């Protein structure tokens, strides 16, 4: 199985603006179908430890993730817990690469717990229990080595 998930898109604007739109206008592009409530708003908060938050008048502010790396025009990475507050933690990395007069935006989405919770049961972490590892091992388990892995 080809993990992590990768997607790319080309936009007709410079990397600095693409970064600005990705972060500052996140509420305009984030699918309604993937919000806690369709009318909630999504934002990257600024500040010393910026977060990705979802806000709804009735349920208040909910943290969806934390910004790990903020390099305007180059790189953004953040954690995202789709099932916040209890769900799987995933890590999104977005690279902004100048491409002629425009920008190629490469998204890599993997699992991972960079802060590595202290809630690990003592012995649990001896298994590198990550989503990618689980999915990869699962693939090997059912099908033997996948052709995708043989040709990187």
């Amino acid at each position, binding site marked *: 199985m080809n993990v992590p998930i990768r997607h790319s898109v080309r936009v007709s604007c410079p990397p600095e603006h*693409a970064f600005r739109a990705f972060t500052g206008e996140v509420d305009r592009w984030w699918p309604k179908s*993937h919000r806690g409530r369709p009318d909630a708003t999504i934002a990257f908060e600024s500040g010393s430890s910026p977060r990705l938050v979802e806000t709804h008048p009735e349920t208040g502010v909910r943290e969806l993730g934390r910004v790990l790396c903020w390099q305007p025009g180059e790189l953004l990475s953040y954690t995202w817990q*789709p099932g916040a507050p209890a769900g799987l933690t995933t890590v999104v990395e977005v690279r902004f690469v100048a491409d002629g007069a425009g920008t190629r935006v490469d998204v890599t989405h993997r699992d991972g717990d960079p802060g590595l919770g202290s809630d690990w049961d003592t012995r649990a972490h001896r*298994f590198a*229990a990550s*989503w990618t590892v689980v999915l990869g091992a699962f693939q090997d*388990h059912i099908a033997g080595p996948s052709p995708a892995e043989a040709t990187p």
Partner: protein
Amino acid sequence: MNAAPALDALGNPTRRAILTLLAGGDRSVNAIAREFPVSRPAISRHLRSLESAGLVAQERAGREHVFRLERGGFDSVRQWLDAFWREALPEFARVAEQSWEERSR
């Protein structure tokens, strides 16, 4: 396919560890429980949660219940995340290009 149960189930480190263990081969409840410093009933609860999320399935082998990984739950998570980017990125490109045009005017 609804990914919410699988996302919830995967949010717990012990449950992820159980899945990683099962990726190495099918195991009985007892064999799983031996690997963890938590009680057998607690492991059974985790297994039930994984089962209802479609991440594992069980089969009776003699007097034992043997658990194995199940594809459906994993696929639902992947499809859900994949669908997110398929929908989000074209929309992001549209938004970015629109606001760039407005700035350049």
